[in-house]
């Protein structure tokens, strides 16, 4: 017979819509509106899982999120591990399996969409029970207030007050400062394979509320007794919920085991539905009980309860319905910073004041809960190892007593020792039971022992939900230059520099990276080449005190710069270590354009603002990022002047009119441009800046104008090689926050005058002034084809000898060089400048490679090439 435990007319399931699902190897039917748990119970299935450590059969204990036991694996339509059968809604085609503790993740990517949304309201009500609906109605009566009512269950036929925004299947999982709450809405999970693909499966709500009303109800508690984990043993309130909501009888003959008065209402209603009920009450003074003053001392049956030993008798029952009182659901309240106090009358923790604007109503505040003592604890016995406190973690009374026996006094320590309360359910039904067990063992009280801290999330949340739409291409913002499409069309691979995508190199047919870079380097040194340098950080610094301001930040003096001139500059942190480098151009008497490294643009602007706002507010200086106002193309090589002359006929490009380290405003390819004669390669070079929206046109015009000369686009790899050949350091690659300007061979850029700058005092410390610091030097492997590994350690001897081996430094940059006809490297080496000409050894793949120490400037040390 199908669904033998379905009551003929009770419950709210839709009997016109039968659904077929599979659990384990059985195919069963349920109705629309069923949870997996209610459908299984309707089919007489209680055993749905095995316990994680002991492998004991486990059943369904609750009818909601607090479920400690019925953890299942969903197989289809999409695999999901460790869901509670009490919260999975049944749909056609659902396939689930019993679990033993741990499930398995899908090997294939989740194709469902997830998203997130922010919401703002004056009042947020959590829980749409009677108290929550009343609070929402009350709040909505205030004109103009936005009221959001959140409920974890599917929509119910209850009345939603007008003006209230209701979110169903939505669980608030975290409550943070400033009334900021996070909720997870399950939007299409219940549709199974029929879920529309474009709709987000789950949505993360980030809710900011003026005030919060928690109407989160109460969770019923278990009572410890031997074998209290057998399938068929569940909470009394759950049995009632299965009857009322789903029309399901959890058994035919039930023992209700209680320490409070709610049992009698449950017993009456179950009897009305045709269940034989015996009530055993632990209290001696329980006139309505069939068995007052009773103790449940044993359970018969292994994979399903078949009987109990209670009050010295044996009863045949197929269900044991337990109520050990109620714990108000105060997880969110506690997360919000709310204090809790133990109420002896209710045997439960109640809200006791919170620093945030939150109130607790209904059962969560203890309203309507029965008077109830602490759970009756069994005397120590042989059965302690079968008397469970936390079902999911297989924690028994014996283990808790072992913890207290080992000297642990705090519930937090007991939790970590036993793992009680650390499972998916975070001890919702067992937390107070653990405390009571600890209290009993210590001869203390639950009030004194307290409970462990409630931490978010209230229910498990999948990583996919937290990621939302921030995945794949939207995982992070990719910053593109205005010339990006050209690089893409040309087949350039991209290098990530911060969030920027920079063209790495431009392979021609059949070229690998090494071949492409060799060709690009050769073009820059012998012909003409160009690079998209738009990512370079640019900051407009203006105001009457701009020169003074820059003097304080750079190690060299900027205020003496002539209008039209450009100077290389280095910035230090307070500790005297190199922070950034770049160029400074004077645009007018009180206006400068500063360039920074690509990766440091925002950090340099922040640094400037920090000094202006906190230390030097009297300086009249304004800094504005113009990084993306300007697209920049570097035109490089002996042929650069000819190409520029062709596209900028009105610009005098001869070396006398336009010398090195000068800038000019000009019309380039018909575009308003600012041209800088600066070089990051040692070759004759121009950096042409146009408005970002003209960047693409400039690039194309230069490609056309340089076609005859074989103009070659080059990427960041070639840039790195060219600059390394000249010994130009890259901050962050050749430096690591422990390197002074002098260490890099930039002592010439440190002013000799006494005028102060940030980092100056640190540079005169004995440690920063000593001569045996690590210096940036060049390394030439004896074997000119051998490429050192960046990061390789450098030592002075071979063989190494016994440890500790004196370590002299490491390789910071290493490339093959077509200009040098060999490989080379830059390295930071102890007393490096004093070692020029010496032989040292670099470690490569466990062998020691002999290298010669040279100047860090390996190519054109005279600087003969910069004027073309």
């Amino acid at each position, binding site marked *: 017979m199908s669904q033998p435990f379905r009551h003929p007319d009770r419950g709210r399931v839709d009997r016109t819509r039968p659904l077929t699902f599979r659990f384990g190897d059985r195919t069963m039917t349920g109705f629309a509106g069923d949870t997996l748990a209610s459908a299984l119970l309707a089919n007489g299935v209680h055993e749905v899982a095995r316990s994680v450590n002991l492998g004991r059969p486990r059943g369904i204990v609750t009818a909601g999120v607090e479920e400690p036991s019925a953890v299942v694996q969903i197989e289809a339509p999409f695999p999901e591990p460790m869901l509670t059968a009490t919260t999975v809604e049944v749909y056609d085609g659902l396939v689930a399996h019993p679990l033993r503790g741990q499930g398995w993740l899908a090997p294939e990517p989740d194709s469902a969409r997830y998203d997130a*949304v922010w919401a703002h309201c004056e009042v947020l009500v959590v829980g749409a029970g009677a108290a929550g609906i009343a609070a929402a109605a009350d709040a909505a009566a205030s004109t103009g207030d936005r009221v959001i009512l959140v409920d974890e269950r599917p929509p119910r036929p209850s009345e939603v007050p007008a003006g209230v925004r209701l979110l169903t299947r939505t669980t608030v999982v975290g409550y943070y400062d400033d009334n900021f709450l996070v909720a997870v809405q399950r939007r299409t999970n219940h549709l199974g394979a029929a879920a529309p693909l474009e709709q987000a499966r789950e949505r993360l709500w980030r809710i900011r509320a003026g005030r919060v009303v928690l109407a989160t109800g109460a969770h019923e508690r278990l009572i410890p007794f031997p074998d209290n984990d057998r399938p068929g043993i569940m909470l009394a309130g759950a049995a009632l919920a299965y009857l009322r909501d789903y029309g399901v009888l959890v058994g035919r003959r039930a023992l209700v085991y209680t320490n409070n008065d709610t049992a009698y209402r449950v017993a009456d209603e179950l009897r009305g539905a045709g269940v034989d009920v015996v009530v055993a009450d632990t209290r001696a003074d329980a006139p309505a009980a069939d068995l007052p003053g009773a103790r449940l001392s044993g359970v018969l049956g292994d994979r399903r309860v078949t009987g109990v030993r209670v009050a010295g008798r044996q009863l045949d029952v197929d269900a044991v319905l337990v109520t050990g009182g109620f714990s108000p659901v105060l997880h969110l309240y506690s997360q919000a910073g709310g204090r809790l106090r133990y109420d002896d009358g209710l045997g439960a923790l109640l809200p006791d004041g919170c620093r945030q604007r939150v109130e607790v109503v209904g059962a969560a505040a203890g309203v309507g809960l029965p008077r109830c003592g602490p759970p009756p604890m069994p005397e120590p016995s042989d059965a302690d190892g079968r008397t469970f406190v936390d079902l999911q973690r297989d924690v028994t009374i014996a283990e808790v007593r072992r913890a207290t026996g080992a000297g642990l006094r705090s519930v937090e320590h007991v939790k970590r020792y036993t793992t009680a309360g650390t499972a998916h359910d975070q001890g919702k039904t067992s937390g107070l039971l653990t405390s009571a067990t600890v209290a009993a063992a210590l001869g203390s009280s639950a009030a004194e022992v307290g409970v462990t801290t409630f931490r978010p999330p209230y229910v498990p949340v999948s990583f996919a939900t937290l990621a939302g739409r921030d995945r794949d291409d939207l995982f992070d913002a990719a910053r593109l230059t205005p010339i990006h499409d050209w690089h893409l069309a040309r087949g350039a691979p991209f290098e990530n520099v911060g969030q920027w995508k920079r063209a790495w190199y431009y392979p021609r047919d059949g070229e690998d990276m090494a071949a492409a870079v060799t060709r690009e380097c050769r073009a820059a040194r012998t012909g003409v080449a160009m690079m998209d340098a738009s990512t370079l950080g640019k900051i407009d610094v203006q105001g009457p005190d701009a020169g003074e301001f820059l003097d304080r930040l750079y190690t060299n003096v900027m205020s003496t710069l002539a209008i039209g001139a450009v100077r290389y500059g280095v910035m230090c942190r307070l500790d005297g270590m190199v922070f950034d480098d770049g160029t400074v151009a004077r645009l007018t008497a009180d206006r400068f354009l500063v360039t920074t490294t690509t990766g440091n643009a925002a950090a340099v602007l922040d640094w400037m603002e920090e000094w202006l706002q906190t230390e030097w507010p009297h300086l009249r200086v304004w800094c504005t990022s113009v990084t993306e106002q300007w697209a920049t193309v570097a035109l490089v090589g002996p042929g650069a002047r000819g190409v520029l002359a062709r596209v900028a006929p009105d610009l005098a490009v001869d070396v006398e009119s336009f010398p090195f380290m000068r800038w000019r405003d000009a019309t380039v390819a018909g575009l308003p441009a600012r041209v800088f004669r600066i070089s990051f390669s040692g070759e004759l070079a121009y950096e042409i800046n146009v408005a970002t929206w*003209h960047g693409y046109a400039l690039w194309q015009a230069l490609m056309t104008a340089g076609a005859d000369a074989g103009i070659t686009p080059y990427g960041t790899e070639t840039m790195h090689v060219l600059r390394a050949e000249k010994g130009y350091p890259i901050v962050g690659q050749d430096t690591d926050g422990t390197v002074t300007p002098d260490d890099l061979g930039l002592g010439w850029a440190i002013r000799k005058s006494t005028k102060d700058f940030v980092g100056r005092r640190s540079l005169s410390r004995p440690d920063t002034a000593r001569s045996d610091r690590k210096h940036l030097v060049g390394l030439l492997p004896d074997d000119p084809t051998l490429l050192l590994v960046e990061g390789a350690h450098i030592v002075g001897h071979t063989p190494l000898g016994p440890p500790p081996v004196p370590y002299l430094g490491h390789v910071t940059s290493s490339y093959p060089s077509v200009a040098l006809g060999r490989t080379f490297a830059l390295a930071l080496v102890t007393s490096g400048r004093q070692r020029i000409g010496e032989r040292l050894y670099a470690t490569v793949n466990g062998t020691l490679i002999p290298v010669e120490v040279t100047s860090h400037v390996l190519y054109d040390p005279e600087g003969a090439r910069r004027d073309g």
Partner: protein
Amino acid sequence: MTVDQRRSPLGGLAEEFAQIAVRTGGRLRIAEQPYLRQLNVRAGADALAAAAATLGLALPTTPNTVIRTGDLTALWLGPDDWLVLGGQGPEPTPVGWGVVDVSAQRTAIVLSGPAAVGLLAHGCALDLERMGSDWCAQTMLARANVVLSGFPPDEIRVLVRASFASYLASWLLDAVMAM
């Protein structure tokens, strides 16, 4: 005659944006407003009047508000920091205050229609429903830094850095799918 050689960051997405109005039955319209003139104005309290006079507009001193003067719109970005939209011509010459033409730094994406606020709520933490009229804000939209400004009844202008525009457009198009 000079040829306009400009290329806007989102020029290639005009058709995709136009489809949104069709898809949503007009509840949401998205369009790039390229080449909007933008001046970043910096002035201390002592130079505020001089800056306003030179620029020919009023500069708001209430945080996160906007003042429109003719075809110019001044957005409050900070206590001494404004963004002036509209108008034309070269950078004015400041005396005792600062100005930078940043017209090409950001492009504008204009969202309008009753669904605009709801769409932005997927990536913006601000309470846009209660902003009132003539507001602006510097904030994050998804993972992009933006300057938002709102114009009644239901138009919101998103100013985004040129390099982030492509990312943000992808994000918007993806968010529309979920509506």
